[in-house]
């Protein structure tokens, strides 16, 4: 399968990229690693008139320590995160999640911002950053705004981003030294998209206890007060039922198992 025809530009700066996208209207799309957009182009599910290559923009590279938060450049690859590019306990957690994304050859090019913007409900970063209550820095030629990661996905491949907006960074709390995080997913083969995702994030210092039910077919379901789920398998099942899964169905059971496994993992984890 071959991609349809489109034009291509590689701007030298973020400002130039944002201006080009504003001028290109709905038919212009940003391209980063291309590991989600590439297949969509080849399958002709995406038919942009113009691709704006942002993969090598210095403004999207690397990460910054901002005190209580880590500011992750949207252009960071899954492989870089897997290899420990990000510091601290949250960096180690993100490395473990990154290791489970697709295959190394894909992780070498795929970017964290690109994966979020693509918004496959079964993708790992969509659920992970919703779980961690991350804040996305989103830019366009009109300015900058913040989108909560748990409000990004509106449906399959559909986000709160407007056509001219680009995710430029992801801010995630480092948490206290007592913070714990867990993530479990079910897929039939390593690297395939998950059939179910469960995760927990608890920090006694701030009183945060969140859970996520991911790979739902739509937006990830975030439970902001998940204390009751941590110690009760029944509460995990009830949360999955409340997320709209039909009791007894394969989907309900596999999501409940992943949520329970994540709860057990959190209880047994050390910071």
């Amino acid at each position, binding site marked *: 399968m071959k991609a349809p025809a489109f034009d291509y530009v590689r701007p030298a700066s973020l400002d130039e990229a944002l201006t080009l996208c504003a001028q290109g209207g709905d038919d212009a799309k940003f*391209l980063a690693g291309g590991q989600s957009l590439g297949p969509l182009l*080849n399958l002709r599910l995406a038919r942009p008139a113009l691709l704006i*290559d942002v993969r090598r923009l210095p403004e999207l590279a690397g990460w910054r320590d901002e005190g209580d938060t880590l500011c992750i450049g949207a252009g960071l690859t899954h492989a870089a995160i897997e290899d420990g590019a990000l510091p601290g306990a949250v960096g180690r957690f993100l490395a473990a999640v990154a290791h489970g994304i697709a295959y190394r050859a894909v992780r*070498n*090019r795929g970017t964290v911002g690109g994966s979020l913007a693509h918004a496959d409900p079964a993708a790992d970063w969509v659920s992970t950053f919703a779980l961690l209550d991350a804040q996305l820095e989103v830019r366009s030629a009109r300015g900058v705004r913040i989108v909560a990661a748990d409000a990004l996905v509106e449906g399959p491949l559909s986000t709160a981003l407007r056509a001219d907006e680009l995710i430029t960074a992801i801010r995630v709390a480092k948490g206290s030294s007592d913070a714990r995080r867990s993530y479990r997913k079910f897929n039939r083969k390593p690297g395939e998209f998950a059939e179910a995702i469960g995760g927990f994030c608890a920090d006694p210092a701030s009183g945060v206890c969140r859970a996520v039910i991911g790979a739902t077919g739509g937006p990830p379901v975030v439970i902001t007060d998940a204390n009751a789920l941590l110690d009760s398998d029944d509460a995990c099942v009830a949360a999955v039922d409340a997320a709209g899964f039909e009791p007894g169905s394969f989907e309900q059971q596999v999501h409940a198992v992943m949520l329970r496994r994540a709860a057990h993992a959190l209880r047994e984890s050390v910071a």
Partner: protein
Amino acid sequence: MKSITLEVNGRTETVRVAPRTHLADLLREELRLTGTHLGCEHGVCGACTLEIDGAPARSCITLAVTCDGSRVRTVEGFEDDAVMHQLREAFTEHHALQCGYCTPGMLVTARDIVLRLPDADEPRIREELAGNLCRCTGYMGVVRAIASVIAVRNSESGGR
């Protein structure tokens, strides 16, 4: 059409490509490097895996135009590579291929496993191979071949 300059197997190439042309098509159709194989053409099967700037990548979902300024190494570009030599011998010895369609991608992935994960055991090798489909061998020979190269290299480096 866009003019791009990239290094392919050590040679600098300047070519004109349509933006929609993926890297594998450029290599096969224009540069006549047909060792890179195309299977699924949407990033799943791994047959087209090669090296871009020193790291394995899928050439079917990488647009050639994005490789302007990059170093590309295909299966034809490892003639002088000691690890690839070991892997080719091991693939023969352990019957790690039958029809050979997946082999160029397998070799690039295998080399990455050997160099990046020198302590990889069989489960880890299998996990890392999940992105390269083989419909002939059932993977046993491939896994054994990679494990044997890791074992030889570790014994040569003084028994890690």
